[in-house]
């Protein structure tokens, strides 16, 4: 006789793919590593410490929140860690640590947990944290150091850094800051001013390619987003630049790659169907260029994604796939 004491009865299907939430978030973290390396090379070890502080703060905030509401701790799914890295990446390296921690609190508690946590939040936590910081401490959030300069590892105040502030390429193009535009090549490699994670387009593209290869994201959102920005900046060049030049600066600056591959693809806050993702990407692209050209800020990625986040439920509703075998007259154009 055989031993059936361990046999369990469940409903089909009885096998599942290997990927789970944790492995997906782990892939996102891996994909962010190239940018972390380049940024550390450009801005020094403070980048690593900033990122570590941000991640730790996110994990602690999520743990505390779960404790308070009596939920099982969810930090094991690593989504809070991803938020932590992304938040650090959209801040300048000179931001005081305590501000970063406040930002992490906003990201995790206000933008994510209060809505029910992973999958239920409707705005991107890292970007919400950044938007809050930018509104609260606009100077600290737009103080950029030049590539190669080293911000003090532990320094917590702005003054010591004043001497070495630099402008971002987009601010120069917009005319809201003085300075010489860095060459396209130095922007590709990350040798320019900007927030920690957005300086090197190449490093971000490598990470994005990894996410595509691992099928963590599909190409729809980034392609639609980047494509829209490319077309618009090519057709309507900014600040006295040539058409192609305008497009290249438009693409490789202001965290577009970071936004397109890592922020606009955030599962919770983007549409679920490929068609919806294309619409979402185009919307992000349009808004980004409009904010850059007409808005008060030189940089538009953060706000455009946050704005589009609020439309996801609508996009999902109107881009719902037509079911198999639907009567022909109801069939919408695909």
């Amino acid at each position, binding site marked *: 006789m055989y*031993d*059936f004491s361990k046999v369990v009865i*469940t409903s*089909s*299907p009885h096998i599942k793919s290997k*990927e789970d939430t944790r492995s997906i978030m782990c892939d996102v973290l891996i994909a962010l590593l190239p940018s972390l390396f380049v940024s550390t090379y450009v801005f020094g070890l403070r980048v690593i410490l900033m990122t570590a502080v941000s991640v730790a703060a996110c994990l602690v905030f999520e743990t505390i929140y779960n404790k308070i509401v009596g939920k099982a701790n969810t930090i094991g799914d690593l989504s809070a860690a991803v938020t932590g890295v992304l938040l650090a990446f959209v801040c300048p390296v000179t931001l005081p640590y305590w501000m970063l921690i406040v930002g992490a609190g906003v990201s995790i508690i206000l933008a994510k947990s209060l809505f029910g946590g992973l*999958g239920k939040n409707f705005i991107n936590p890292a970007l919400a944290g950044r938007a809050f910081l930018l509104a609260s401490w606009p100077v600290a959030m737009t103080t950029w150091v030049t590539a190669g300069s080293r911000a003090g590892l532990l320094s917590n105040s702005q003054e010591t850094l004043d001497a070495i502030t630099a402008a971002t390429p987009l601010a120069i193009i917009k005319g809201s800051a003085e300075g010489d535009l860095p060459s396209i090549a130095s922007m590709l490699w990350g040798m320019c001013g900007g927030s920690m994670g957005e300086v090197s387009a190449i490093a971000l593209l490598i990470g994005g390619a990894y996410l595509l290869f691992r099928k963590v994201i599909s190409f729809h959102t980034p392609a639609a987003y980047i494509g829209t920005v490319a077309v618009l900046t090519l057709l309507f060049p900014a600040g006295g630049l040539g058409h192609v030049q305008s497009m290249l600066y438009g693409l490789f600056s202001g965290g577009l790659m970071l936004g397109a591959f890592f922020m606009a693809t955030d599962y919770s806050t983007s549409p679920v169907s490929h068609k919806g993702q294309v619409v979402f990407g185009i919307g992000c692209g349009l808004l980004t260029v409009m904010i850059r050209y007409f808005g008060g800020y030189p940089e538009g990625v953060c706000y455009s994604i946050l704005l589009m986040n609020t439309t996801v439920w609508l996009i999902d509703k109107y881009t*719902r796939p037509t079911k*198999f*075998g639907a009567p022909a007259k109801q069939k919408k154009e695909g």
Partner: protein
Amino acid sequence: MAYTFRGGIHPGTKDDPGFKSATNTKPIEVLKAPDQVILPVSMHIGAPAKVLVKKGDIVDLGQMIAEAGGFVSAPVHASVSGKVIDVAPRLHQNGSKVMSVVIENDHEDRLHESVKPKDFESMTNDERIQAIWDAGIVGHGGATFPTHVKIKSGIGKCDTILINGAECEPYITSDHRLLLERPEEIVEGVRYLVKIMGVKQAFICIELNKQDTFAKIEQLLAGDPIIKLAPLECRYPQGAEKQLINAVTGREVPSGKLPADAGCAVFNVDTAGAVYRCFAKGMPVIRRVVTVSGSAIAEPKNLEARVGTCVTELIDACGGFKKDPNKLLAGGPMMGNAQFTTDVPVLKGTNAFLAFAEDEDKRVKDPTCIRCGRCVGVCPMHLVPVYMNMFASRNNLEGCEEYDVLDCIECGSCAYVCPARIPLVQQFRVAKMRVQEKRRAEAAAAKK
């Protein structure tokens, strides 16, 4: 050029696509007839058959022991010769006890007088369909819908026959081996079906992972003006009727309708084989090829067993379990039924029996949807499982209906890819039942 449909998944690993490598090169082994067979009166969809014998009767191989209980029903035949030792409810693969005829095998395999070749050409079409009905032929792919019903309701409506050799369910290789080892039976069976239904085209549809069967089948089909081989890309659930029809003909079966409404009749390869055996040998359905596989099985095999053989004997023939099983399955891992024992009989539609040692199901406590959209991309019915699940978990039946939960074919693709491990299919099954209940209640209220 290989055909396929939109959506679906590719279970398996790079080295073992579809988890079929354990048995796809193993020839069918004929299992010795058991000392006893248990033949439930329900091995098909539809009304249970009505038992014709009583305890103590002596029956012959192929003798009808239960007759069809209605038009949508199929008779049952003795799969061994011997003595009826019991007519009583016995454990069935569906988990409940079902009226069954238990026959003690006298190991003589004495053929019943009704088992003799039929002269197909001189029979009228009605006689031919009656012969298929009398042979107890049902869908051998696992769905077990009585074949005569499909034929009868399809004549005049269908212009195309599809022979389903997709065998897209992971692990299962019984149809693969049949296509490889007995292609003549299948092709002849298709010829019979084509004549009976009077269709203008027929396709034998086989996924590319069974390419080794193509040469022989193409040779058998050479010069045939109607029957063609249709190679399919590998993709689950390509063997689902609607997806198969769409892959090969490009047609979409309208929502809530049957394949015949798209002009197609779909038969499993072994159903075609059964049709052949019915006319050429006069033999009703008494055997079936079963893939026995999974990580808990010592030596996975393709076994040909008499219908009614206890599954335990199949496991024994495969060297027993090498590890204690965590999961026992009748059928494939995507749509098969979990069993709590091997003490159940092989049925007409049992294409596989699997035993897993590890927890392949990977359920978690309190799963949370991360809105990754994977389920949307893979749904072969182009539904939005993420929203269906949201509505189902909030008990919002209107939402479920609006998001077409009734169109779900329960293929499991969404649940397979879900990284949050949400038991989506389970949710949808319950939601479907409740939506249907609600509709019935509404219809009843409207009548009053």
